[in-house]
């Protein structure tokens, strides 16, 4: 049980830390791409509906679960869940939320280190005067893909500078975590989040006011064409379930729900402190950063210089590193350096405020259950992350990175969110649950949310889970119809490669581990799965040990303990 005496220093600090947890790279890179691929401006309708029916309820559920667990001295999900039910196995479901964070932080800190390196490169003028292909090539060389590395060590291509930057970023994270909640995370959030807003507003104004860039032979090279492309509503897309699924998925991932970080932050609240208004403020701050800032930067600036056709074909996460530096360098040197600083600085802040949150479940768990000091907890976290991060860094080009992202950053989140909302609404019960949500509330929580939390939110998450589990090829409405007709006529299902079932059983994949020239991508894929499974099992054993320690404490008279 809790040995900790930590708490938040101020309400605004807590909200900024929670908002920082939610605001991540996806706000600037995933949201605009999802919008342009799913109906432009009309995407915002299912997005907001999903926010109201799934996002807000999940925020309230997670905040109240955390505050409830905190009353019993539990600051990590296994024992927060344990405090809500008499069934002892719920604590093992709680393992998901520590596992998820260890998995994500391993590759997320690596991406964070790219943004740090690119901030420095932008300021030093490393991108000035070079073409788009060269900028993209610089990134490939930096992370060591496409055989671009020259630093061969023992036959393994090591991206030396990327590893150095990763270690520096990891050390920074560990140092801040070792300073605790109010002395580390809260201080960073109070300084970094306003900076993020300033950087974002600067870039958004630049994109909106730029207009026609007068590129020869490019009719659509105009930032306003980019905004039109993103916001022009295609209402017919609303009848496509794929668009609704994409919107629900975006809400799910942008709010950082299903990770256990919100519960862990909220566990340090006092029992009568508000959660209803705090959760709304943090959630809407994330929506502001995503809809107002995120939508106004990457797509408009890219269309402004590359044209609509290029963006439609190439819009994706890697544009941040492979394209944006080139685009900034179309401006005067000073503005280009400033924009590079704003863009990569903004991404770095979005990244570090999220990765700090991801470290908290581990910190809360070992401090509560094993009585470790903060420094020890943080250093051991750093060592675990270092070991887990090596496969995605060293074997990046074999898809290890994507494997981590798929299992920890996608599947585990949905599984945990589904479990936690069932626990809250059905096992803990809505009577007690509603009392938790409204207890100490500084706003009136609409009564219909009682119904939504019990019925609509679990249904929403269940649909997301099932559609990911058995997703057919492409996943359009027509593909589902074709899949069912194939099931009934031929007795088979056209699994999409990224469906959970196809991934588990390696369907449509070559299973060979070794080829004539060495280990195959499948070998590295299974190696990364082994690392992830070992991590989960290791954490489950730690939870079992912690549970036994708790039992011993309860049965041992205090006088004997002393």
């Amino acid at each position, binding site marked *: 049980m809790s040995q900790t005496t930590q708490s938040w220093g101020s*309400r*605004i600090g807590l*909200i900024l830390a929670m908002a920082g947890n939610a605001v991540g790279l996806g706000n600037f890179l995933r949201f605009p791409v999802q919008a342009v691929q799913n109906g*432009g*401006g009309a995407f*915002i309708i299912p997005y907001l509906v999903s926010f109201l029916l799934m996002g807000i309820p999940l925020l309230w559920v997670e905040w109240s679960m955390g505050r409830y667990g905190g009353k019993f001295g539990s600051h990590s999900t296994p024992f927060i869940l344990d405090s809500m039910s008499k069934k002892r196995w719920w604590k093992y479901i709680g393992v998901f939320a520590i596992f998820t964070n260890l998995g994500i932080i391993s590759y997320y800190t690596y991406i964070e280190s790219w943004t740090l390196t690119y901030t420095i490169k932008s300021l030093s003028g490393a991108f000035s005067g070079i073409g788009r292909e060269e900028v993209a090539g610089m990134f490939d060389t930096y992370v060591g893909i496409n055989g671009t590395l020259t630093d061969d060590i023992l036959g393994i291509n090591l991206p030396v500078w990327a590893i150095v930057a990763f270690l520096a970023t990891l050390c920074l994270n560990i140092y801040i975590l070792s300073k605790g909640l109010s002395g580390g995370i809260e201080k960073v959030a109070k300084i970094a989040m306003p900076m993020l807003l300033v950087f974002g507003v600067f870039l958004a104004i630049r994109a909106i006011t730029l207009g026609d860039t007068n590129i020869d032979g490019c009719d659509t090279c105009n930032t*306003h*064409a980019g*905004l*039109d492309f*993103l*916001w*022009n*509503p295609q209402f017919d897309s609303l009848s496509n379930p794929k668009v609704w699924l994409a919107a629900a998925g975006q809400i799910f991932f942008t709010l950082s729900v299903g990770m256990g970080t919100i519960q862990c932050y909220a566990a340090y609240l006092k*029992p*009568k*402190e*508000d959660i209803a*208004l*705090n959760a*709304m*403020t943090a959630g*809407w*701050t994330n*929506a*502001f950063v995503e*809809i*107002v800032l995120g*939508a106004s930067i990457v797509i408009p600036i890219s269309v402004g210089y590359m044209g609509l056709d290029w963006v439609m074909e190439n819009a994706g996460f890697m544009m941040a590193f492979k394209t944006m530096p080139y685009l900034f360098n179309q401006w005067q040197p000073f503005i280009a350096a400033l924009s590079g600083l704003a863009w990569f600085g903004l991404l770095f802040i979005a990244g570090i405020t999220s990765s700090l949150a991801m470290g908290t479940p581990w910190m809360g768990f070992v401090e509560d259950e094993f009585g470790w000091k903060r420094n020890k907890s943080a250093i051991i976290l750093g060592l675990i992350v270092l070991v887990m991060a090596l496969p995605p860094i060293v074997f990046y080009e074999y898809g290890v990175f994507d494997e981590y992202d798929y299992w920890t950053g996608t599947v585990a989140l949905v599984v945990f969110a589904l479990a936690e909302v069932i626990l809250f609404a059905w096992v803990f019960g809505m009577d007690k649950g509603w*009392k938790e949500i409204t*207890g*100490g509330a*500084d*706003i009136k929580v609409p009564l219909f949310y009682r119904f939504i939390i019990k019925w609509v939110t679990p249904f929403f998450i269940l649909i997301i889970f099932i559609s990911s589990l058995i997703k057919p090829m492409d996943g359009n409405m027509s593909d589902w119809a074709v899949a069912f007709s194939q099931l009934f006529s031929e007795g088979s299902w056209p699994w999409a490669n990224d469906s959970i079932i196809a991934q588990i059983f390696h369907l449509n994949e070559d299973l060979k581990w070794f080829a004539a020239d060495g280990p195959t991508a499948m070998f590295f894929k299974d190696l990364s799965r082994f690392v992830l499974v070992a991590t989960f099992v290791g954490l489950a054993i730690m939870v079992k040990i912690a549970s036994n320690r708790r039992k011993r404490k309860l049965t041992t008279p205090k006088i004997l303990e002393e």
Partner: protein
Amino acid sequence: MSGSAILFMVVVQLSVTIVTAYFFYRVLTTKKKPEPDSFTDNDDS
């Protein structure tokens, strides 16, 4: 930009900004609750 795109963008972005600002205003202007000073105040029942 087409009229519908401008309208959609302005309405959505303005609405989200106003809602966010409103919640921040509520947070900043809500008075801090006094610390509970007795066992009864801490009791849920």
